[in-house]
């Protein structure tokens, strides 16, 4: 559609810049030309007026010096004068004091107004194509009128106006072209940014937008977008690693299922054997289900949809219930599970999600604390939130592992072999972090290897409501 195409062309920044540059430039040129013309016209008028004044003074002197008895000579001189200034078409008229026309020189135009006095004495007026002035002589004997044609000035002014229109026309043609070129230069960095950005692909985010070092707005645009690209690249990298890891983790139970089913079907077996096999499968499925559920939970966290519920939660009650839940298992493992400082804390949050956090931490603590050890839970109220601490006297976390414990699937090298019976999904702590961060809180791990670990969670009383 042509109209849509026009819209695209005129919708560009370059086109709009060109348009406005042209309008402004043209108006400036037009105003300058009109101003000059007006000055010129005024100049011509002043020159004509001066000329008339001078002639008037000479005539006055001549009439008064010679006296009325030499009227014939005076007339002859005046006719000479009129002939001398034929280009200006000078004419002279004499009137009596009462305004009666006595005499007209040669070249007096044949117009109706030449027979009488028009206008006020001493003031220039334009009559037809003539500029005239009349006034009484100093001895008040006569009234003299001097006039010249305005044609010469008009012609000169017209000459100027014509070249002015020509210049204006050329300007009208040239300005948009120049404007288009200038706008192009101004927007070229922008076009480069657009071209580079168009080339970017999520799979190859190593290219960056050009920064020219001019520190202008366009440089800032490039830098801002480059910063965003860096963050996206890091995020995608993490996401890719996570996906690869998740697929890998899913493979293990799938492999177990496949091989055991195939082996079972190799030969005919008794009903009891088949039953045993199916029960094994059911346990494998449980592992798969747990893994998939936790992966979904993390995906929700990534999408910012984790722990969105905002209702008043009695955190102390919630923690107490969790301790009660783990009390039996702790006792059976010979671990003392107890509370230290325990304040009443209410905060706005998602109870189900927060329960996950506490359960995961207690689960970890029980798992890694040996017989005779202890786990202490502290809940401290603070001015605008609370601090929850789970401290155990377990094996602890190696210094090299500490920065990574909240990463999905991160497992310590040492634990992988010795704690096989406690094999979890490797997602528990990353789920904790996702939930705590969804509540605008923070989670931290500290440890003295061999002496125990301490997890500290800080939660605000009123986390920002998450938009749904």
């Amino acid at each position, binding site marked *: 559609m042509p109209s849509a195409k026009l819209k695209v062309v005129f919708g560009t920044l370059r086109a709009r810049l060109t348009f406005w540059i042209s309008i402004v430039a043209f108006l400036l040129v037009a105003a300058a030309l009109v101003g000059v013309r007006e000055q010129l016209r005024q100049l011509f008028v002043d020159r004509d007026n001066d000329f008339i004044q001078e002639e008037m003074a000479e005539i006055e002197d001549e009439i008064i010096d010679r006296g009325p008895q030499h009227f014939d000579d005076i007339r002859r001189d005046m006719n000479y004068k009129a002939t001398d200034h034929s280009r200006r078409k000078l004419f002279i008229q004499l009137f009596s004091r009462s305004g009666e026309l006595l005499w007209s020189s040669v070249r007096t135009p044949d117009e109706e107004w030449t027979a009488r006095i028009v206008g006020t004495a001493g003031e220039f007026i334009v009559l037809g194509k003539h500029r005239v002035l009349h006034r009484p002589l100093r001895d008040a004997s006569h009234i003299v009128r001097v006039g010249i044609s305005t044609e010469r000035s008009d012609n000169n002014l017209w000459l100027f106006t014509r070249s002015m229109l020509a210049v204006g026309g050329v300007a009208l043609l040239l300005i948009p072209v120049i404007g288009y070129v200038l706008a192009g230069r101004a927007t070229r960095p922008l076009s480069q940014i657009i071209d580079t950005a168009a080339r970017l692909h999520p799979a190859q985010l190593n290219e960056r937008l050009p920064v020219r070092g001019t520190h202008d707005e366009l440089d800032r645009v490039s830098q801002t977008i480059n910063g965003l690209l860096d963050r996206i690249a890091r995020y995608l990298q993490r996401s890719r690693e996570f996906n690869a890891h998740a697929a890998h983790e899913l493979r293990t139970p799938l492999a177990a299922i496949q091989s055991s089913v195939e082996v079972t079907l190799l030969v005919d077996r008794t009903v009891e054997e088949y039953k045993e096999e199916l*029960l094994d499968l059911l346990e494998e499925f449980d592992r798969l289900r747990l893994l998939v559920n936790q992966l979904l939970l993390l995906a929700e966290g990534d999408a910012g949809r984790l722990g969105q519920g905002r209702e008043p939660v009695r955190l102390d009650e919630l923690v107490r*219930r969790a301790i009660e839940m783990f009390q*039996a298992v702790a006792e059976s493992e010979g671990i003392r599970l107890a509370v230290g400082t325990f304040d009443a804390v209410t905060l706005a949050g998602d109870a189900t999600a927060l329960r996950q956090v506490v359960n995961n931490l207690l*689960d970890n603590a029980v798992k890694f604390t040996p017989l005779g050890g202890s786990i202490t839970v502290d809940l401290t109220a603070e001015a605008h939130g609370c601090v929850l601490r789970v401290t155990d006297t377990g094996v602890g976390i190696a210094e090299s592992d500490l920065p990574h414990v909240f990463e999905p699937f991160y497992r310590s090298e040492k634990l992988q072999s010795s704690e096989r019976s406690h094999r979890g999904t490797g997602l528990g702590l990353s789920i904790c972090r996702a939930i705590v961060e969804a509540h605008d809180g923070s989670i931290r791990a500290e440890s003295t290897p061999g002496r125990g670990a301490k997890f500290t969670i800080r939660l605000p009383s009123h986390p920002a409501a998450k938009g749904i």
Partner: protein
Amino acid sequence: MELLVVEDDPVIGRSLRQGFVEAGDKCVWAKEGDHGLELARSQQFEAIVLDVLLPKLDGLEVVRTLRTEGVKTPVILLTALGSVEERVAGLKAGADDYLVKPFAFAELKARLEAIGRRLGPRASPTLQVGSLNLDLSTRRVARGDRDIDLTPTEFSLLEFLMRHDGQVVTRKMLCEHLWESDWEGSTNVIEVHVNRLRGKLDRGFDQSIIQTVRGRGYAIREA
């Protein structure tokens, strides 16, 4: 029970029907939403098991239509979508319960019976399984003529098992009932609680009244 199952996945649909029929229920299986809606309108069922993502007419739409037409048959929604919003949307549409795939058949069965009971007459204040008695009003538990002292957690655990007398109760169901959490960790939290309860109940008896059903959960029955 007379049940209607609306499920487009052939394996899930077939296994559900088989499971219900072998448990002694009557079961009709529809593979499409509109067909399920027709059946639910024309026949009297005791409960409907309804998948959310269905061809032709989705599960939420089926429940909504049934409820606006005044059909009050209890409905359990099955779905692979487990977020809170999905759950809320399902219940808002008029469903009575909501189960996220994958689920244990035992749990679906238990929930269907819970729905039936909710609508039926109130349960009596005492529960009995074999020689074991539990009085809900006095919170007294006795096996034979011996009184048993239980902690509140153990009492709730036993009550839940006895309400599902003869059925399998999964660890997930127990965890949800006792601690409002569908948490599943690596430590055997539930096992330890069940073992303690078992220890108290079985003292002086040769046979355990709580059976471990391997790969599935627990069941209470006098052996």
